[in-house]
């Protein structure tokens, strides 16, 4: 297959995100790129993927295109269940979501996410340096989906030893059974997709581990853009650049209006 020559950072995230999703599983989809990746997965290798949106829709076929919101009318049509937020989160807390797919603004080595604030904490909580939108459903997905897939743009300022605020708990301090002891459910962060590669969390230490490198990056360049020491998998792979067909699908079929995948300036 022809390799794309003009794919963007967002587009490779979408392609990588789609590939992590498995057919016939239930994925609780956060707003933004997770929606795009989910739709791409459905259009490609995972037609039986079952999306759940926090506003209430379970398993809509998404035949009317990419939703602008997780409460979009496009998520309601043909859904197999449609109530409200409590119902969507209750079924997740029960164990119905195999995957949770969330974005964040800051991440640490254990896959804990921040989407609340940047600045001094706790002193600066009520007057933060940068105020972010807040958890939305992310912390609920983090607490109750079986496994979570995280998306964070790769940037040294966002990959920190210590988060400004832990909005969505991942593997907490990485200690054995930390999540279980905290009363949480699910196995926690499964994959992290950044603008530079794909990571898992090493089984014993729960530390972020590079498993696949995006084109143009190296282990060294990725480590250099990370504010803590990464683990590197033994068999780290080179992630193939998106194909021209994948990029065409994103641009023409999945997000033709550029709602979440911004068009590169010509």
């Amino acid at each position, binding site marked *: 297959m022809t390799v794309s020559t003009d794919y963007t950072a967002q587009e490779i995230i979408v392609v990588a995100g789609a590939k992590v999703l498995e057919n016939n599983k239930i994925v609780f989809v956060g707003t933004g790129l997770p929606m795009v990746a989910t739709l791409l997965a459905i259009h490609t290798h995972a037609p039986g993927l079952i999306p759940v949106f926090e506003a209430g829709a379970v398993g809509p076929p998404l035949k009317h295109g990419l939703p602008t*919101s997780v409460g979009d*009318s496009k998520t309601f049509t043909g859904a197999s269940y449609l109530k409200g937020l409590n119902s969507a989160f209750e079924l997740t807390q029960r164990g119905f979501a195999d995957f949770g797919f969330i974005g964040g603004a800051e991440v640490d080595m254990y896959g804990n996410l921040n989407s609340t604030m940047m600045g001094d904490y706790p002193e600066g909580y009520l007057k933060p340096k940068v105020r972010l939108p807040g958890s939305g459903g992310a912390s609920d997905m983090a607490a109750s989906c079986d496994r979570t897939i995280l998306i964070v743009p790769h940037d040294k300022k966002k990959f920190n030893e210590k988060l400004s605020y832990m909005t969505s708990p991942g593997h907490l301090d990485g200690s054995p059974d930390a999540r279980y002891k905290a009363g949480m459910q699910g196995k926690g962060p499964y994959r992290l997709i950044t603008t530079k590669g794909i990571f898992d969390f090493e089984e014993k230490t729960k530390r972020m581990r590079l498993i696949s490198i995006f084109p143009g990056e190296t282990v060294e360049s990725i480590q250099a853009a990370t504010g803590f020491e990464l683990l590197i998998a033994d068999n780290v792979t080179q992630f193939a650049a998106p194909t021209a067909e994948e990029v065409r699908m994103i641009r023409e079929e999945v997000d033709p209006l550029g709602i979440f995948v911004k068009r590169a300036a010509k």
Partner: protein
Amino acid sequence: MEKDAKMFWTGLSPDEAREALVNKDKSMRDKRMTLKEAVSEFVNAGDNVGIGGFVNVRQPIAIIHEIIRKGFKDLILSFHSAGMAPELLAGAMMVRPDHCSIKRIELAYWGHEGFGLSQAWRYLAERGMIEFEDWSNYNMSARFKAGAMGLPFIPTRGPLGGDICNTSRTKVIDCPFTGRPIGLLPASNPNVGLIHVQAADMYGNCIIRGTDATCAEIAMASAHTIVTCEQLVSHELLVTNPKDIMIPFPAVDAVVKVPFGAYPGACRRHYYFNSDHILEFLGLIAPICKGGSSDALKAWYDEFIFGVESFEDYIDKFQTKKLFADQAAESYNCERLA
């Protein structure tokens, strides 16, 4: 923060909420009134206001316009994920701080998803202009649910492990059955709930299409609830299929017919987002956050809210063909024969 302080309740405490409802006239009576009357009667300074809808879907925008027109003081807003509703209130506070003020917000998310971040949220928070308490979507929905159930709290897993536990009134206990930690969230019983729905009868029975969001819970939890509706229909038609009714009449105090009442947000079966108008409005807020002038924003409020008598006049400012186009876009999402 508030962790060691004595418990404080925003809105009504569980016992107060119970008492208010017990003493209320719950009869099946005509509750139609104008939006002016409803806001004047049920929205007061210092009130805790529960906002329905989800981000920019079925938010009670017409009610928000009327609250801004009337002016509001020290409001406490409670919502899970909201977009234009708090944005309009915050923008009003930015241009008319004498007339409009938010004191505190209890929220999960304030932003616009595909339409971008909220600059007003950054403006208010980063300048320390308001109190706030972070929760998650499920946390806020469950807190309204606890209020609607007449319970002082509800357990969830949601806040465990993270900082929401530390900056909110969550209490973590060891489950007396399993021994494992579990979060207890205090109920939310607002003074007034603001809800926009697709259809209602004059008694306040409401049909909601698409996501219910947490509207029924907010209506049941609140001491009073104002409902605006796209269609005001006969009781007999409304109860044809009782299972379509998401909010029963005793939970509602005012019913106002307001077509396009969630515009420029979307409303299932009626209209899809007016993205241009949302982006235009957000574009007026952003420069102020960077220290720019608020004149353009002020002009917007003067034209669209303060300068009109009613939400109908606001809607009248849109080109008919744009309104029709947004209706057509929604028809595409859920095709039905008329």
